[in-house]
């Protein structure tokens, strides 16, 4: 009946009629929607800028590492059915990742791959000829633009169309969100942000007392769907769940409880958690985790508030309160004691308490897990911080339900963004709305002033009670220039728009994993992946640092030991050990993993040695910058590695300081004899040595900074980048070196 009323024929016909009446639309609406369309076009255009580096190859690729994981799931869904990674149980295990156990892909969140697979099937159905990887590469730009559209509606609800427009603009150009929604970034943040925004939009509408009950219930259902999509899309859904719990709790404290709140809350969370827990990976355990239990606690509180609202005696109210509180606390204690309560994963705890991260080198080694310093926040947000602060001020002055939510959202997401760089993307929508409210809050009085006639009434001394409307114009002009400086000519970035700098850079593979934006793609990594997929068997095990696991395992089509899934810390410690140990200590553990090849990525800097010659030294963006993590991660497992008999106690290290020391004069690392004897050092330096012996390097008189020793048990098979000109990428040489492990020599060696 409800649906009938909402989607009646009459309503549909009226809807079409209203389309015909668009010509009668007010000028303000035309301007508003034109601006919105323009913002969406800008949003999409900026996000596809990296395509410039993809055009030469004629295909689109994915950015960074994790998107390849999501792509492999999507590919599985497209080829074998949407639920094929999960059903029949135990689901799909990718044998090429995390050899020998394989990676259990049924433990993946489905929102993004499902979205990708469904949309791909739809566009294929309509005859669009596009390969899946290209589709997955372009999808983030489309979803990112869609998120801006949703934020427009959220902002519109919070403060009118102007706030909506500014919010959409800020989100469209937010560097952190831009990075996570630009071409190729097919990762979990996308369903997360879209779910978050849709949830906010619908949940806040559902608790709006001005709406009818049926409308409110529909919005609750929508909010439930959005929340379930978020939970099944990104682990950060804990944030949204607890933010909403906190918000509703604050409403109760502010004595703003309403029956509508109880209904919306119950429908939204009940249905969302019901849908989410149907997924095998989430399961019912999700409900008893520390982060989700407050949902139940608040539900009890809401029920209590509903009971207390009725006309019952004070004595009964006290009894009811005591019973409810006792029951809730008692249930928690009993569940805790019986071990039914699950804990939150370590990385979520580490967001709440960033100091935990420093104790775990595995988490700390990931760049996106860094703590955001004030400088980084300013670098990212620029002068818009001014608008954000004024937005907070204006929002606090008018604490409606929506504004209370916005304030809590802004403050909590700022804390999480400060705790972890990656979570700046969660802060981006809150920042966008608050900054928009700040700008409008500052502009509105001056707009009002401009509409008035000039009044020049003097006050004491030179202060003015009222100023002329030209003054309003001047203020608007100054604010406009401030806005231009915060979006278009950002001083903290040398005047280059921060958004443009973020967007106009090649995807990681096309830049050869270098932080540069060259004229042509850097092909060294692509060449290596082509080589492995064309010349190696998919069952060949290649040992590499975990960063490159997805690349090698998915587009490279070989079997790898570890990747960004980091599901087995012990194996990562062992890989760290393989690279840091001397060759003869590494081989036995490599043999245990059936590794046939080992791969290192080494960047070399070419610098002028004399008028006619150049020297090749270590760069910064390859394994020469990552080996310290290999040392500290394996060093943290020192006792286990010794006990397992891989090395004796005297030879086993604690961290990178056992391999040399930092030269404070030159800023480079001075390897000691232990360091020079490590496998990683030999593999990197030998690749560099071979490069300097290439015709291109000899022709340019490039010499190595020190003569390398050829590894005894690792034979170079293919070194991508070994033939390029020293100056092709501005003096940086990316060398991706693949060595075959020579077990025969090892086992035949006299020692």
């Amino acid at each position, binding site marked *: 009946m409800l649906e009938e009323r909402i989607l009646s024929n009459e309503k549909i016909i009226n809807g079409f009629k209203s389309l015909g009446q668009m010509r009668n639309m007010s000028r303000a609406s035309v301007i508003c929607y034109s601006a919105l369309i323009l913002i969406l076009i800008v949003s999409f255009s900026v996000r596809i800028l990296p395509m410039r580096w993809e055009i030469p190859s004629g295909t689109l690729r994915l950015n960074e590492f994790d998107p390849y994981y999501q792509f492999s799931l999507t590919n599985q869904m497209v080829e074998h059915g949407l639920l094929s990674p999960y059903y029949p149980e135990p689901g799909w295990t990718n044998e090429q990742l995390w050899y020998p156990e394989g990676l259990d892909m049924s433990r993946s969140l489905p929102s993004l791959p499902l979205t990708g697979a469904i949309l791909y099937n739809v566009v294929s159905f309509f005859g669009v000829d596009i390969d899946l990887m290209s589709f997955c590469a372009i999808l983030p730009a489309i979803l990112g633009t869609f998120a801006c559209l949703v934020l427009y509606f959220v902002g519109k609800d919070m403060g009118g169309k102007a706030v909506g427009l500014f919010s959409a603009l800020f989100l469209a150009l937010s560097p952190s969100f831009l990075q996570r929604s630009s071409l190729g970034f097919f990762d979990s943040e996308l369903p997360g942000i879209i779910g978050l925004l849709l949830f906010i939009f619908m949940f806040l509408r559902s608790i709006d007392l001005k709406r009818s009950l049926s409308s409110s219930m529909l919005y609750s259902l929508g909010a439930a769907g959005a929340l379930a999509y978020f939970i099944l899309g990104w682990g950060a859904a804990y944030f949204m769940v607890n933010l909403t719990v906190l918000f509703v709790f604050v409403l109760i404290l502010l004595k703003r409880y309403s029956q509508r709140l109880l209904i919306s809350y119950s429908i939204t969370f009940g249905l969302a958690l019901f849908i989410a827990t149907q997924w095998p990976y989430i399961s019912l355990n999700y409900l008893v985790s520390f982060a989700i239990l407050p949902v139940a606690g608040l539900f009890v509180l809401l029920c209590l508030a509903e009971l207390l609202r009725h006309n019952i005696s004070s004595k009964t109210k006290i009894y009811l309160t005591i019973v409810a509180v006792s029951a809730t606390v008692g249930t928690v204690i009993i569940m805790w004691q019986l071990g039914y309560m699950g804990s939150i994963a370590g990385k979520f705890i580490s967001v709440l308490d960033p100091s935990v991260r420093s104790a775990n080198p595995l988490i700390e080694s990931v760049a996106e897990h860094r703590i955001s310093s004030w*400088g980084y926040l*300013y*670098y990212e947000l620029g*002068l818009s*911080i*001014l608008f954000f*602060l004024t937005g907070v001020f204006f929002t606090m002055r008018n604490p409606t339900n929506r504004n209370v939510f916005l304030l809590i959202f802004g403050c909590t997401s700022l804390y999480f963004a400060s705790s972890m760089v990656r979570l700046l993307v969660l802060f981006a929508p809150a920042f966008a709305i608050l900054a928009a409210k700040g700008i409008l809050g500052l502009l509105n*009085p*001056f707009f009002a*002033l401009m509409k008035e006639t*000039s009044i*020049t009434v*003097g*006050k004491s*001394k*030179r*202060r*003015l009670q009222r*100023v*002329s409307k*030209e*003054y309003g114009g*001047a*203020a608007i*002009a*100054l*604010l406009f*220039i*401030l806005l231009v*400086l915060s979006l278009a*000519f*950002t*001083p*903290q*970035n*040398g*005047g280059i728009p921060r958004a443009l700098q973020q967007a106009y850079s090649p995807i990681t593979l096309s830049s050869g994993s270098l932080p540069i934006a060259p004229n042509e793609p850097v092909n060294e990594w692509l060449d290596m992946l082509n080589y492995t997929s064309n010349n190696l068997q998919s069952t060949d095990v290649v040992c590499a640092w975990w960063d490159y696991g997805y690349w090698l395992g998915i587009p490279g089509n070989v079997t790898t030991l570890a990747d960004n899934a980091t599901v087995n810390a012990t194996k990562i410690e062992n890989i760290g050990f393989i690279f840091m140990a001397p060759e003869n200590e590494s081989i036995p553990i490599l043999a245990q993993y059936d590794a046939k090849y080992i791969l290192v990525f080494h960047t070399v800097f070419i610098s002028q040695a004399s008028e006619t010659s150049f020297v090749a030294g270590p760069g910064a963006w390859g394994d020469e910058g990552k080996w310290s993590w290999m040392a500290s991660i394996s060093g943290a497992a020192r006792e286990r590695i010794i006990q397992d008999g891989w090395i004796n106690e005297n030879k086993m290290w604690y961290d990178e300081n056992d391999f040399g020391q930092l030269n404070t004069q030159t800023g480079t690392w001075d390897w000691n004899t232990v360091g020079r004897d490590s496998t990683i050092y030999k593999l990197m330096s030998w690749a560099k040595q071979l490069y300097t012996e290439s015709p291109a390097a000899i022709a340019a008189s490039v010499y190595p900074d020190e003569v390398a020793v050829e590894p005894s048990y690792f034979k170079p098979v293919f070194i991508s980048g070994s033939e390029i000109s020293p100056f092709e990428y501005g003096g940086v040489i990316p060398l991706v070196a693949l060595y075959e492990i020579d077990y025969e020599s090892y086992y035949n060696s006299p020692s």
Partner: protein
Amino acid sequence: MFPKVPDQHKVGKPLIPNGFGVIYVLFTTVYLFSVYFMGIVDSSNNVSAPLTLAVCILFGGFMGLLDDWIDLKWRIKAFMPLIAALPLIYFATESGLRTSIALPLIGLIQFNEAYYFLIIPIIVMIVTNTVNQLGGLNGLETICPAIVLIGLMILSSSYLLMIGPIIIWLVLAFFNFRGKIFVGNTGSFAIGMTIASFAIVTDLKLSLIISILPYVFNSVLILLTIFLLKKRANVTFDGKTLYSKHRRSLVTLITYRRFLTERQVVVIISLIIVIFTVMAAFLEML
């Protein structure tokens, strides 16, 4: 176009156009953008000095506009410039500016990180507010900051950053001194922010501190009398000269039991500023 306010120290209190500071702000922004586009001043570690200055001056100007319009509370005015300190802190950290100040007789004081997070915000806050507080006489709020800024420009190799702004400010000062225009809070906050940000960007802390000592003295005097005596500085105008019966500000100190014309007072205070600016230059060159 500009709102008119009475000139308190003229017979008949004629209405004078106020808020000309906005011209300075807009011109300076355009000028600094031009400097940026022409690449006259190199970006330091990829942070643009002209754009950083533009941001700060714009913010100062906007703050002045707000003050003119809604008469900001002193608590807000005192701390608002802290926001503008953010781009300067970022500039200083990224450019690796010196974190020490060499004071005569005291020696080198090393502030380390505190320089960025404590000293820079304090400098911005104090300079902007003290410059704003020394005004009320024709020419006073324009000539004195011009003297300080010219002193800093002479000492800095990046003087090109301020050539345009100082010219337009001197033009405004000329008309202000003649009682034709007022720059308003927009102007006084913007020029205060200009002085503070230029001194920080060009690393001329010591010169700044010495140059603005008369300003600081004036503000201390005003604030102490407000907080301790609950009284405000007030100068009497008899139609020709100024006169005061108390010493609650620099102006009232100079006119204390003395009959001086408005121009005489402005010239005296300007000379004091000149003396301190010369001292600052002398010490900087030592």
